[in-house]
């Protein structure tokens, strides 16, 4: 059977049929898998939040292991005591803020001068209280995000970073232990004011022994991702300042 594939009418018919078939396959896949994907994403957020405050299943020095998905929902309920949204420097209780609030949208709202809801979590583990702040920013290629856990003195107790599309082996290493572990112990306050934590090159401190400088050794070959992490920490956490000030005085 010979079809004249050069005719315009055939070309148009072919594209219409192709788009219809491909479109329905993709729509079917997307709706059919939506619940499972959504559940996986919720678990991931719970795991990330717990990881930032030091609740993890790390086996040795190099591994980044979360609480298994089968247990994470229960653990999250147990450890994360309070979930708030911060509006204009005031905290309001907000159930399941970790899943229901889209931080990127809220940050965009704030940037355009409107009111945004900033999620904020309080966790308790081994009798210690932790404040956990979600962050969102830009890396080299795409979005980066993460969670910053502060202890009661507002010193960084842990972080978790993740990214959408940073270069494997370079920028993608922001989610490696040797980078994330360096943040623990750094203070976001210096000289009496909020200063954040910076990722810097050549600070002559690869082991990050100096915890008072607010600096963390950068990753080789990942300057822009590193700058993105610095900007993300400084800009996201800065928005929480009015509220964190009230916690600092207590």
């Amino acid at each position, binding site marked *: 059977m010979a079809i004249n594939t*050069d005719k315009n009418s055939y*070309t148009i018919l072919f594209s219409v049929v192709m788009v219809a078939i491909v479109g329905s396959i993709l729509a079917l896949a997307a709706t059919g898998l939506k619940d499972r994907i959504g559940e*996986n994403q919720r678990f991931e957020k719970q795991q990330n939040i717990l990881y930032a405050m030091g609740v993890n299943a790390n086996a040795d020095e190099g591994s980044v292991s979360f609480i298994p998905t089968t247990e994470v929902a229960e653990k999250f309920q147990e450890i994360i005591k309070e979930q708030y949204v911060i509006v204009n420097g005031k905290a309001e209780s907000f159930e399941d803020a970790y899943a229901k609030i889209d931080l990127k949208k809220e940050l965009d709202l704030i940037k355009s001068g409107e009111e945004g809801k900033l999620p904020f979590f309080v966790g308790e583990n081994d009798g210690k209280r932790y404040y956990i702040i979600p962050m969102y920013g830009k890396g080299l290629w795409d979005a980066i995000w993460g969670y910053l856990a502060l202890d009661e003195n507002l010193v960084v107790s842990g972080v978790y970073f993740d990214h959408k599309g940073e270069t494997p082996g370079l920028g993608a290493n922001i989610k490696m232990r040797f980078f994330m572990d360096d943040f623990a112990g750094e203070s976001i306050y210096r000289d009496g004011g909020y200063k954040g934590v910076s990722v810097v090159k050549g600070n002559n401190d690869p082991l990050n022994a100096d915890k008072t400088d607010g600096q963390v050794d950068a990753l080789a070959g990942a300057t822009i991702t590193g700058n993105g992490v610095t900007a993300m920490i400084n800009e996201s956490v800065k928005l929480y300042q009015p509220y964190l000030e009230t916690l600092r005085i207590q």
Partner: protein
Amino acid sequence: MGILSKKDAQLVLDPLADNNPITIQVLGICSALAITAELKASLVMAFSVLFVLGVGNVVISLLRNVIPSKIRIIVQLVVVATLVIIVDQVLKAFAYELSKTLSVFVGLIITNCIIMGRFEAFALGNGPWKSFLDGIGNALGYGVILIIIGFFRELLGSGTLLGYAVLGDPIAKTGLYAYGYENNGFMIIPPAALIVVGIIIWVQRSRNPQLIEEA
């Protein structure tokens, strides 16, 4: 290869050496530079392309008589993008951890010119079985080079292989580092991959002078 005829075997073996997509045809250089800073990423990319090129070539080959030639490039793009997205969605639902590792590669797979190149040059004119073999062969040829580059870049740049410190600890100065050896930071950045590709091309052409083009 007993099950394959001589001609079929050539489809798989040629791209591994004398008609390698990277070193001879100089395709797929972008991803060869971008993701070879560590061996693991090279392996992941090699397997992903193996899958997409194998299946994609078969799909294009089955459709080869009905695809209108005017829009064939768009059709090829649609096929490869659909394949990649479906795999990505299924992984997100059933193997979330794996999908996180792969997410970076999704864009790179779709834009890999080896894939479009094989659709265009082979699958549009050959049957499904031959196209499948051609896809597998080219993906393996691509993967071999990626793995070689990843091996040297990770070993010389970070002193590790697949994340394991094989040369000792550069900060605590153990193993090779105790004798004053240092990691070469240059190997981590993409230009180093170009130099490794250049060396592979050099070695390959000096062993087989037939590959050298007349000036």
